C-alpha cells in the first residue's frame, strides 16, 4: 500500500481498528484545497450568503488585439 493510503488507518487505535469497516484500510488521500477556490459573495436577491461567482462563458466585449502580434 502506498503511504498515503495506510496513513489514516495506521493512526487508529487498536480498538478503533476493530470498529472500522474494511474500507477504512483503503482511504484515498488527496489535497483538501480544490484546485480553484470558489468566489462567494452575498446576494440579497437570492437570500444567499455564499452566492457562487464565476467568469462569464464568453467575451462580453473584444477590445484586445491578438497577443502574438504585440
Amino acid at each position, binding site marked *: 500500500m502506498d503511504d498515503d493510503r495506510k496513513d489514516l488507518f495506521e493512526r487508529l487505535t487498536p480498538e478503533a481498528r476493530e470498529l472500522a469497516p474494511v474500507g477504512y484500510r483503503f482511504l484515498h488521500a488527496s489535497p483538501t484545497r480544490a*484546485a480553484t477556490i470558489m468566489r462567494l459573495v452575498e446576494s440579497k436577491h437570492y437570500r444567499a450568503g455564499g452566492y457562487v461567482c464565476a467568469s462569464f462563458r464568453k467575451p462580453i466585449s473584444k477590445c*484586445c488585439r491578438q497577443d502574438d502580434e504585440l
Partner: protein
Amino acid sequence: MKKRMERLDDELFQPLTAAQQRRITAGSTPVTETPITLRETFGEVDDYIRDGDNE
C-alpha cells in the same frame, strides 16, 4: 461525388499555435470541474438528510 481524403499530418490540420490559442476571454481557463459538480457530488448528502431518523 466522393470526397478526396486528405492526410491528417498535412499542415492544414495542425492545431493553432499556443499564442493564437491563448484565450483572452473568460473561457481562458477551461472550467472542467464547475462548482456545481464539485459541490453536488460531495455535498450530495448532508448530515441532516443522511440522518433522516426522527426518533
